[in-house]
């Protein structure tokens, strides 16, 4: 199964035509390209700052997106406010596009909570850790959109490793069966922790979709314009009642799986070098440059935005309030639950007993 890899910006930053994608980005002028460039630079900087915060002990863990900026910004910027995102844990770039606050981006990773934001405030579910589970949620949400007669879409982000999970395949079955307005957005970053994509599949992942009756596109995931175009194609199909779509964005995880991971144990330095040459930001910079747009002003502006984001992130992170002990009992149920209430009361009494006894002892 041979599936063409579509692109609009070459590794060297040359804009090339593509008849499938071109019609969908005719409106993207160099100004907008500069915006995408800025988004990518900013999110890379946020990512680096979060990694630093983890190294400094301020975050428990961080899954870097380094290398995947184009895949996330290109798709994230294609979405409408009333679309709904179901992501995995690595889609900080998408969250950024949705308008998630900087402190909210790291709240979960600091260990304060499992929910960085209210999903309905930004129409993006909280990140999913169980690999692939969110693809079904997106499909169900899309069914709801369909029942409501709305023209929004749901989009599920998942990795190359996730394609092996039953849930992801069942999601495609359900989506195709009901022609639900959902986009399966696979970031093939070539690795699932230490496992190369070749262990999950010998054939291109985009090829999976056709068998389920779902049209697929395979795009250069480091090409922000190609990703934008592909996502717009899928969104248009969803809004027009054309059912689900599948996008494989071929990219690369340039960092470790998470800050707890040491990729030198399992992958070649050469591979990383090869991919560094395909950097998603560099190529847009080169394109802007060649179009005379990468002015010192722009660069200064972008750098300032990145700095501000990094500072905002750090301040936001350090400013997060620790949760209070009795939070462990809150929101397990929507309505009172006799057994849990008993346990809560008992623990409250237990904590109070220290104070009581303590003050006794001190008296």
């Amino acid at each position, binding site marked *: 199964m041979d599936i063409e890899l579509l692109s609009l910006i070459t590794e060297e930053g040359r804009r090339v035509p593509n008849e499938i994608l071109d019609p969908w980005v005719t409106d993207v002028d160099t100004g907008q390209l500069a915006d995408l460039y800025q988004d990518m630079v900013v999110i890379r900087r946020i990512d680096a700052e979060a990694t630093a915060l983890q190294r400094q002990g301020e975050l428990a863990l961080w899954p870097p997106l380094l290398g995947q900026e184009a895949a996330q910004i290109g798709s994230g910027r294609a979405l409408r406010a009333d679309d709904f995102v179901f992501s995995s844990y690595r889609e900080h770039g998408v969250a950024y596009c949705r308008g998630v606050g900087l402190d909210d981006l790291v709240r979960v990773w600091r260990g304060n909570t499992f929910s960085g934001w209210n999903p309905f405030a930004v129409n993006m579910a909280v990140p999913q850790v169980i690999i692939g589970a969110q693809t079904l949620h997106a499909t169900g949400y899309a069914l709801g959109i369909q029942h409501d007669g709305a023209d929004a879409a749901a989009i599920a982000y998942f990795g190359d490793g996730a394609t092996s999970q039953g849930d992801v395949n*069942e999601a495609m079955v359900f989506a195709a069966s009901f022609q639900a307005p959902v986009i399966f957005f696979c970031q093939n970053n070539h690795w699932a922790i230490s496992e190369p994509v070749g262990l999950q599949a010998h054939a291109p992942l985009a090829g999976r979709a056709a068998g389920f009756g779902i049209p697929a596109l395979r795009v250069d995931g480091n090409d922000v314009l190609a990703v934008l175009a592909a996502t717009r194609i899928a969104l248009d199909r969803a809004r027009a009642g054309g059912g689900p779509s599948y996008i494989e964005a071929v990219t690369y995880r340039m960092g470790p799986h998470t800050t707890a991971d040491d990729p030198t144990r399992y992958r070649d330095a050469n591979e990383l070098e090869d991919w560094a040459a395909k950097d998603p930001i560099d190529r847009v910079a080169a394109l802007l440059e060649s179009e005379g747009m990468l002015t010192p002003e722009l660069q200064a502006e972008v750098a300032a935005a990145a700095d501000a984001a990094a500072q905002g992130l750090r301040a936001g992170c350090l400013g997060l309030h620790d949760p209070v002990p009795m939070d462990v009992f809150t929101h397990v149920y929507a309505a009172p639950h006799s057994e849990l209430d008993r346990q809560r009361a008992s623990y409250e009494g237990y904590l109070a007993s220290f104070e009581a006894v303590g003050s006794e002892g001190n008296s």
Partner: protein
Amino acid sequence: MSVLTFGQAINAGLRKAMDQDPKVVLMGEDIGKLGGVFRITDGLQKDFGAHRVIDTPLAEAGILGTAVGLAYRGYRPVVEIQFDGFVYPAFDQIVCQVAKLHYRTRGAVSMPLTIRVPFGGGIGSPEHHSESPEAYFTHTSGLRVISVSNPQDAYTMIQQAIASNDPVVFFEPKRRYHTKGEVDEEAELSTALPMGRARVAVEGTDATLVTYGPLVPTALDAATAALDDGVSLEVIDLRSLSPLDYEPLVASVRKTGRLVIAHEAAQSGGLGAEIAAGITERCFEYLEAPPIRVTGFDIPYPPSKLETHHLPDLDRILDGVDHVLGRPYAFRAQEAGA
């Protein structure tokens, strides 16, 4: 008052819930044209349309996972798992998503799902068709678990479950689907006994017999049989398996001093363990004997020709009562003597 079978009562309850709230949608395998293999959803697709009574592809994780997405979108999915033994492919979605999303999102996202599971044995079925998996769910924080025992409760509680903003696993004792009973279809839901409450089905003084779902009728028979022998059993129908409603249980055991718990599920780690432990904690000084569990054995559900040797029946329950009263085989001697 109408006389309905258990199955008809659930059907009527589903219909009422769907009538009252357009966000209620049913999902499952074969629930549409066929009306489900037990015909519980009979006629509903015809009346409410294929949009609200959704025949899904054959994949339980898929059903639960899409139900989660529908709940995100504001729907109240009522999922039918065709048989108890087919709930496990959906276990991950139930345990990691359905049960946890409200907590995970600090209350922002509700999961008002109802997961209907025809459960239990006694109908001569092939393997995987007679399971009692309730303890897996009662041990899962974030879920509510219900088991109904009669048509009236079935009718009322399926509506309460659907109205609940928490996810509810709703166990229907499939071997009782054809039992008939009076059902008041007019009564206000708000006046009904709340979903989380147990009910004293028979009052008594000598020993407390607690059970739920399919064994409630057997327990009622046991109370009758015991009374013939001069033993007054108090029978409690749990109705809610999570949370457990300890109030009537504690009151009863403080009165009788003796407790027998019956369920079809395997003994080790079954709900009976929790009840025995919970009651011992709460009623230690009142207990005249250790709580006794009359349950299925710690075996996979056996082939149907052997199921009567696994399922607690009248005799085994009376044997349990004998033991907790410290008079082993008294009932049997009576039978034999008669």
